[in-house]
């Protein structure tokens, strides 16, 4: 398979869209946790009961008429190979838990993979909508409409006082987790983020690395999301998160400008060094790759490097993950082999850019 074709299949179509503030906000994610009345939660469910829930939802849901959603495809997790499962995780379409531990699980995807609903994960249904750039408000609207549509076919477990009932008490109430993935290289290098992060957590928001709970920040990418789901309306949750993200965007932009004004030479040097390493290395670990991709992306955003598309960071951060490398190679790879493949993939990908746009060479 050619690299171009592989990438076009590996990257979800929604990621190729541009979105508001996408020089700093990579993507917006809205997740709603829902359960169906009368069925035990997956944690306490027998194989048969899980199967019955799967069947219940699958039979009741027709194809949506909402054009923003499009056609839905059910993918049973059991039918997938280990690498295919990991690819879904690396694309943020399923959780590691769904891939590894769940029984009678499925992921329901729409055509551009902006909608992915997990069935029989921790909750019966985990509705997820992904958007390019910073789109919390409109994003929540799409997710909420999809939620209403589903509720017109299945009975949700809902309590007047406690709201949407979920398996874990951390999700009860709205069941809403709204997250925003941000690229914050300037705030990271100037160490400002170390001071900002504790303040953010005091506001009831959480900051994580790109692969969720417990994952380390890679490529200066940070995921910021609400923690509390009970006692606040969805609109308030979204608004509070939006306020913090807006401030972070502004600070990041200001810091970038400062760096450009006062440390122009160092900045240009750093960006071009990273470009040089990415374009020429033969072995590269994912942590190192993440660091240089972040610098390259910063260079593109600040117009220090021309002829490369900005979404290269989003794209390559996913492509250089172990499962993607193995899927591209069509075989299991040792860590050393992965580092070699990773370097090759990045070099080839950068060459594609230069061929397509005739941009400058490092």
């Amino acid at each position, binding site marked *: 398979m050619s690299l171009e074709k592989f990438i076009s299949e590996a990257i979800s179509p929604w990621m190729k869209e541009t979105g508001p503030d996408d020089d700093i906000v990579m993507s917006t994610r809205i997740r709603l946790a829902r359960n169906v009345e009368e*069925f035990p939660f997956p944690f306490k469910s027998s194989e048969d009961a899980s199967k019955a829930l799967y069947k219940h939802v699958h039979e009741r849901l027709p194809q949506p008429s909402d054009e923003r959603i499009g056609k839905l495809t059910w993918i049973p997790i059991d039918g997938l190979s280990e690498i295919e499962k990991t690819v879904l995780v690396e694309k943020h379409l399923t959780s590691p838990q769904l891939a590894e531990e769940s029984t009678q699980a499925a992921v329901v995807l729409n055509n551009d993979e902006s909608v992915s609903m997990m069935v029989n994960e921790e909750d019966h249904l985990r509705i997820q909508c992904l958007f390019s750039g910073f789109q919390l408000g409109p994003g929540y609207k799409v997710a909420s409409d999809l939620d209403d549509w589903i*509720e017109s076919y299945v*009975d949700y*477990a809902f*309590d007047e006082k*406690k*709201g949407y*009932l979920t*398996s874990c008490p951390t999700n009860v109430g709205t069941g809403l987790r709204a997250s925003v993935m941000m690229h914050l290289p300037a705030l990271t290098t100037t160490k400002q983020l170390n001071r900002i992060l504790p303040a953010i957590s005091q506001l009831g928001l959480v900051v994580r690395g790109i692969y969720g709970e417990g994952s380390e920040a890679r490529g200066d990418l940070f995921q910021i999301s609400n923690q509390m789901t009970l006692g606040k309306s969805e609109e308030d949750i979204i608004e509070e998160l939006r306020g913090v993200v807006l401030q972070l965007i502004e600070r990041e932009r200001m810091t970038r400008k400062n760096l450009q004004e006062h440390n122009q030479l160092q900045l240009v040097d750093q960006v071009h060094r990273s470009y040089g390493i990415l374009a020429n290395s033969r072995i590269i670990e994912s942590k190192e790759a993440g660091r240089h991709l972040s610098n390259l992306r910063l260079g593109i955003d600040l117009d220090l490097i021309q002829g490369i598309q900005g979404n290269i960071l989003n794209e390559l951060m996913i492509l250089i993950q172990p499962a993607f490398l193995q899927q591209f190679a069509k075989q299991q790879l040792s860590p050393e082999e992965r580092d070699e493949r990773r370097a090759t993939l990045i070099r080839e990908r950068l060459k594609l850019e230069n061929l397509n746009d005739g941009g400058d060479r490092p």
Partner: protein
Amino acid sequence: MRCQECDHRKATLHFTKIVNGKKNEMHLCEMCAKEKGDDLPGSNSYSIHDLLSGLLNLDPSIGTNVGYSQRANQEEALRCQKCGLYYKDFVKNSRFGCSHCYKAFSAKLDPILKRVHGGNHTHTGKIPERAGGRLKVQREVAKLKAEMQEHIHNEEFERAAEVRDRIRNLEDAQGKEGDE
């Protein structure tokens, strides 16, 4: 970089753990990382559920290791009749077994929810169209009643009457639904 455990294979996993402000870095190869799985982030072993479970156990009414009281014995037996989940297992796993568990354990729930949700224990957000139809009307009525009071206060009696009629319509519609 070599793995700090076996000092033999290449370290491919790098973790930074910060506990009480003390930073601890680990560089491991995949094999040693698997063996050490227990204290590594990202592996399922220390998840939000463990953290929560610890929080739930803090509840003073849940007799911990210290002095098993009579109350603790009663709690041993507290159980959801629908899915059979014991309260103690809920505390252990911090997961409910079914939607009925919320009712079964309701007496103990609010302090837990408050702890997890910054002092809140009541839902104020979205209400589903069908499952929450009744509640939706109730909230609408409450809102309209407040509106009516304001009109009365401002001596806008005609508008207050309009709102009163809307409240009646809503309540009538709901009454009929209840009869069915």
